[in-house]
C-alpha cells in the first residue's frame, strides 16, 4: 500500500533581509573589526553563503568589554530595577513582533526545521525575556539575601545548536540582575544574534549594555580571559568548558558552565507505548540530535525490547529529512561539515566496535550537510557510541532487566545533564527520579524547557543552573 506524500510547504524567505556583510555590535553601533579577518556564514542545507561576518580579535573584544564596563558604571548599574525591567519587556515584545523573521533566519543559518524554530526556539526566547524582565525590580525577593548585587560585566559564549535561545538564556537573566554583557555567538550561527543587536537598537537599550562580538574559538578565548570580565558564562562542549575552568583559575571571575551530556532515556515494560515512541524520537531527533540533553542512550527493559524497537523503526521511517524551511520537515541539516564529519566518524566507530546500525530509507539532498536518523542496537556500555556525546541524530540502544540495573547503567557516565523515564507507575517514577544523577529528569516526556525551570548538569555536565530563580542567582553576587 502506498503512502500519502506531502507536497512541499516551504516558508517564505522574503520576510528576511540578510545584509551581505555585518560588523560587530559594540557600544550600540555596528562597527568594523580592527584585527580579524571576515568569515562567511553558510546555510547548512544548501552550502549557500548567507553573509560575511566580522571576526573580532583581542582589540575588538577589549573595546566591547570597555563599552560594557562603561555602560555598567554609568547607566545600567545605577538604573532602577523598574526601568531595567521595562527595557527587557520591550525586548520580549520586539522578539514576538519579529518572531516569524527570526524563525526563518534561524532555520536558514542553523539548518533546523522551521517547525522547531517557529514553535519552540523563538517563543521560548520571548518567554525568557518576559520571565526575567519581571525579576529586574524584585531581586531582593530572589532568595539570595537582602542585598544581591550584579557581578558587573558578563562575558558569554554560546553554541550553535540553539543560537537565539541560548542568547536569551544568557542575556535575559544577566541584564535583569543588572550586569552588562559581551556575547559571542557561535561562528556558524551568528545571524540571529546580529538581528538581536538590531532589536536592542529598536528597544533604545542604552549603548554598551549588550555587545555582540562574532568570531570563533580565538574570539571566545579573548573574551573569557579578558581582565575586565567579572562573570563568565559558557554553553558548549565539556572539552572547552574544562579549558575555561582552567583559564579562570586564580581569578575572581564567577563562572557557570553548561556542558555536554549523554542522557539515558529509560523505558519500562509498562510504559505507555505510543507516547514513549514519540518521546524517544523527540529525545534524540529533535534539532537533529544537536542537543546537549538529547536522550542518546535508550535503555529498554528486555521484556519489551522487540516491540519498542519494531515500533521505533517504523516511526523513524516516517520522519521527513530535508529542507529546513519546509514546514513538513522533521529533521533538518547538520549544522556544519565539521559536525557532519564527527557524526560520521563516531557512527563508523560504532559499526567497527560491533554494534548494528540501522537507518530508514531516506533520500538526502545532494547539497548541504545531512545525516539520516540512525539507531544502533547491540550496544554495550563500553562502546564509544554509548559513552561519548555524538551530538547528532544517532541513538544507541541498551537493555536492562530491573530498575536497579537501569539506574546503574544510566548513571554510568561522567556526564549528568538529563535523563528520561517512561513508565505508568508513579511510585517508580519518583524512585527513579531520586536515583538518577542528572540535573533534569523528564518523566513520560522529554526535551521540555521553560524559563521558570532550572536547567543544568551534575558532574562533568558543568556547574550552575539556567532558568528560574536559580538562573538569576548565577548573575548575582551574594
Amino acid at each position, binding site marked *: 500500500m502506498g503512502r500519502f506524500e506531502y507536497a512541499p510547504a516551504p516558508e517564505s524567505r522574503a520576510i528576511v533581509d540578510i545584509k551581505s556583510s555585518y560588523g560587530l555590535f559594540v557600544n550600540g553601533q555596528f562597527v568594523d573589526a580592527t584585527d580579524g579577518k571576515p568569515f562567511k556564514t553558510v546555510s547548512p542545507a544548501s552550502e549557500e553563503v548567507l553573509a560575511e561576518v566580522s571576526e573580532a580579535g583581542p582589540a575588538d573584544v577589549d573595546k566591547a568589554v570597555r563599552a560594557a564596563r562603561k555602560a555598567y558604571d554609568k547607566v545600567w548599574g545605577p538604573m532602577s530595577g523598574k526601568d531595567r525591567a521595562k527595557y527587557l519587556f520591550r525586548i520580549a515584545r520586539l522578539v514576538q513582533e519579529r518572531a516569524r523573521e527570526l524563525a526563518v533566519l534561524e532555520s536558514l543559518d542553523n539548518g533546523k526545521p522551521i517547525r522547531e524554530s517557529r514553535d519552540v526556539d523563538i517563543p521560548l526566547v520571548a518567554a525568557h525575556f518576559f520571565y526575567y524582565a519581571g525579576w529586574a525590580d524584585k531581586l531582593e525577593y530572589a532568595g539570595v539575601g537582602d542585598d544581591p548585587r550584579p557581578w558587573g560585566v558578563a562575558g558569554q559564549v554560546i553554541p550553535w545548536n540553539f543560537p537565539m535561545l541560548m542568547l536569551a538564556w544568557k542575556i535575559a537573566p544577566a541584564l535583569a540582575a543588572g550586569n552588562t554583557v559581551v556575547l559571542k555567538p557561535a561562528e556558524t550561527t551568528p545571524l540571529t544574534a546580529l538581528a538581536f543587536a538590531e532589536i536592542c537598537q529598536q528597544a533604545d537599550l542604552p549603548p554598551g549594555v549588550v555587545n555582540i562580538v562574532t568570531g570563533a574559538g580565538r574570539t571566545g578565548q579573548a573574551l573569557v580571559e579578558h581582565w575586565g570580565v567579572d562573570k563568565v558564562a559558557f554553553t558548549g562542549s565539556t572539552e572547552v568548558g574544562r579549558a575555561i575552568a582552567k583559564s579562570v*583559575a586564580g581569578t575572581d571571575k564567577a563562572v557557570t558552565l553548561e556542558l555536554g551530556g549523554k542522557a539515558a532515556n529509560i523505558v519500562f515494560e509498562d510504559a505507555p507505548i505510543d507516547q514513549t515512541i514519540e518521546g524517544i524520537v523527540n529525545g534524540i531527533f529533535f534539532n537533529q540530535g544537536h542537543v546537549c540533553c538529547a536522550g542518546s542512550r535508550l535503555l529498554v527493559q528486555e521484556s519489551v525490547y522487540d516491540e519498542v524497537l519494531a515500533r521505533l523503526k517504523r516511526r523513524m521511517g516516517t520522519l521527513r529529512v530535508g529542507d529546513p524551511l519546509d514546514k513538513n520537515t522533521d529533521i533538518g541539516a547538520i549544522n556544519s561539515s565539521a559536525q557532519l564529519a564527527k557524526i560520521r566518524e563516531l557512527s563508523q566507530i560504532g559499526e567497527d566496535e560491533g554494534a548494528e546500525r540501522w537507518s530508514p530509507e531516506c533520500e538526502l539532498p545532494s547539497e548541504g550537510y545531512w545525516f539520516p536518523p540512525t539507531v544502533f542496537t547491540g550496544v554495550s556500555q563500553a562502546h564509544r557510541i554509548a559513552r561519548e556525546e555524538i551530538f547528532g541524530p544517532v541513538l544507541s540502544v541498551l537493555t536492562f532487566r530491573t530498575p536497579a540495573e537501569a539506574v546503574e547503567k544510566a548513571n554510568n557516565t561522567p556526564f549528568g545533564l538529563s535523563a528520561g523515564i517512561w513508565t505508568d507507575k508513579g511510585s517508580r517514577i519518583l524512585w527513579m527520579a531520586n536515583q538518577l544523577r542528572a*540535573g533534569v529528569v523528564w518523566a513520560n516526556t522529554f526535551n521540555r524547557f*521553560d524559563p521558570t525551570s532550572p536547567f543544568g548538569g551534575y558532574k562533568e555536565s558543568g556547574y550552575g543552573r539556567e532558568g528560574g530563580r536559580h538562573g538569576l542567582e548565577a548573575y548575582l553576587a551574594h
Partner: protein
Amino acid sequence: MPTKDTATPRLEVRKTYKLYIGGAFPRSESGRSYVVNDAKGKFLANASQASRKDARDAVVAARKAFGGWHARTAYNRGQVLYRIAEVMEGRHQQFSAEVAAGEGLSISKARAVVDASIDRWVWYAGWADKLAQVVGSSNPVAGPYFDFSLPEATGVVAVLAPQDSSLLGLTSVIAPAIVSGNTVVAVSSYERPLPAVTLGEVMATSDVPGGVVNILTGSASEIGPWLASHQDVNAIDLCGITSEDEARDLEIAAAGNLKRVRRPAEEDWTADQGLSRLTQYLELKTVWHPIGV
C-alpha cells in the same frame, strides 16, 4: 592533653593521634608523623602525617559512604548532626584545652570557640530538613506539566580546612557539606591538628556512619593536589590554602573533572554563616511530568 597537677602527682597517659578514615583510626600508611607544638613552641604530640595513599583511601571510603548517607532522610541527617553537638559538649574540656594550646588562646577564649563550634553543628543540623524548602522550587511552567526542582548533594567533597581556626573553622567547612548528604575528606590545619583528631573521635561515637567524614592530619600543600586532581572527588574547598599560586594550581587541577571549587577568601568564622557554603555543594535536580487524566 596535660592537665594541672592535683594533690597527688600522677604520670599522665598520653595519646597517639591518628587519622580518621572510613570510621577507623589508622596511622598513616606512610609511617610518617610530624611534631605538633603549642603556640609557644612546646611539644604537644606527634601527629600522623597523611600521604597521597591515605588521601586516596579516604576518597574511597567517602565514595562508599555517599550512597547510604545521601539516601537517608533529611530528618535523620539532622539528628546525626545534632548528636555530634551533644557528644562534643561532653568533650568540651578536651576541645578547649586543645584549642587553647594550638591557637594560643586563653582558656576562657578557647571555651568560647568550642561553644561556637558546638552551636554551629546545631545550626547546621537544623538546616537538614529545610534546605529543600528554601533552595528548591515548584516551577509554574507554561504548559500542562508538573515540574519541581530539588537540591541534592553533589558527592564527595574535599575540604582543605582553615589553617588558623582549628576547630571552629573546621566545623564551619565540614558541617555544611555533610548536612545535605555529601561525604567529606578533610585535611586539617597543619600546625593545629589536634582538635581535628578529637573531632574524628566524636564522629566515631556519634552515629555518623563511617566514611561520611574522613579527617587527615598533614599538609594541605602536599595532599591538596591529589585531592584536586582526583577523578572521584566532586567538589573542593580551598579555604586552607594561603598561597595564591597554590590555590590557582589546585583550581586548574580541579578543572580536570569539573569539580565545584570554593576559592579561598577572607573569612570571619565567628560571623553568621549564611547559605553560601551549604549551596556550594548542592546540585539542583528538575523533574518534569505531564499533567493529564
